[in-house]
């Protein structure tokens, strides 16, 4: 049996990390940072698990934490693949662009931003620096045929 006040301190820190992760999950609009906030919540959970494991003196809490670690690694891989796919569709990481994913007969939660989204930027054509003397004839006149 471990120390009760040590356990309480760990639980307080875990709760604070969990709440901070929840706040970040709700307020951030960047898809990557939303995923990182979920990982912050998982940190708080695994802190709780190891603290209780140490309090009871068993290794069960650490076995659970290994499970949490595995699931968080899977989640990170899947989330990054999903973010890459979403980014290639809209060219942006803003989560508000995806707020109308429901059925078409449901009320829209936000204004449809698809029409408002800016057109893809046109690539400027490469220009060569002018070399040699400028042509003498005026631009409107046809060039003289070569003899």
């Amino acid at each position, binding site marked *: 049996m471990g*120390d*009760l*006040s*040590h356990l*309480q*301190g760990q639980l*307080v*820190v875990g*709760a*604070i*990390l*969990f*709440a*901070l992760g*929840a*706040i*970040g999950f*709700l*307020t*951030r*609009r*960047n898809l*990557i*940072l939303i995923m*990182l*906030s979920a*990982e*912050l919540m998982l*940190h708080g959970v*695994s*802190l709780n698990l*190891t603290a209780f*494991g*140490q*309090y*009871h*003196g*068993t*290794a*069960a809490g*650490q*076995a659970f*934490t*290994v*499970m949490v*670690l*595995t*699931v968080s*690694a899977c989640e*990170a*891989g*899947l989330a*990054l*693949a999903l*973010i*890459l*796919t979403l980014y290639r569709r809209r060219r942006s*990481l*803003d*989560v508000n662009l995806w707020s109308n994913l429901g059925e078409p007969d449901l009320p829209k939660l936000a204004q449809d931003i698809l029409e408002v989204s800016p057109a893809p930027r046109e690539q400027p054509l490469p220009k060569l620096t002018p070399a040699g003397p400028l042509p003498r004839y005026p631009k409107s006149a046809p060039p003289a045929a070569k003899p």
Partner: protein
Amino acid sequence: MTTWITEHWRLLLPLALGWVCVWLLMPRGPHRSRALAGIFGLAGLLAVKFYWLPPSGPLLQDIFFLTFAAMAIIGGVLMITDHNPVYAALWFAIVTLAVCGLFLLNSAPFLSAATVIVYAGAIIVTFLFVIALAQQSGSAMYDRRASHPTLATLSGFLLLGCLMFTLQEWGGQAAAEGGNAFLKVPAGTTANLGSVATEDLGSLRSVGRSLFTDYVYAVEIAGTVLLIATIGAICMAPRRSQGNL
């Protein structure tokens, strides 16, 4: 109502200070009063320290615990409020290192090392994504404005208040009566034999014995989850027009 507030001011004071700190730091435009938020945040941390984190055991352990806890909390606050996603990923690395330090204090050195290894890869990949996908010239519009900062921070701190209230109740009254359901080993059930208390708690030997005797099905399920996640990530990842990855 007022009696309730005066009874529970130890719970409400750090919550209010922390809420003001996070609310002030939320990205909502060009101007944020960081100094004021820092003062409120430090006051909240000190309140948490004095009312919620009593000294427990040896001095050196307390010093390490407080250092790692402060690193984790400050890094977490700055991670969820930073304008720049690159800095936010860096703060997340700080939080991960601090949590690994707390794992060490919880006598879990193997887990600490494993977390560092796993999250090192995860954070490097996240860096690559941030640098490749986010705009490099300054932070984008969606990073400079949080969505519903007031409501979100209020609900988050309400959640934290409920958690800490529960902690206060079972830590205060039930622990005085000899522990409650959280703290007692269940009497009617036989404990998992591979996970019982040993001298070498946290060593690779004890964790492995627990994993491969009591929780061997969990290990199998974790392997299956990893396999399915790999297949899913390959399926979801965008393909080139040639048809191969």
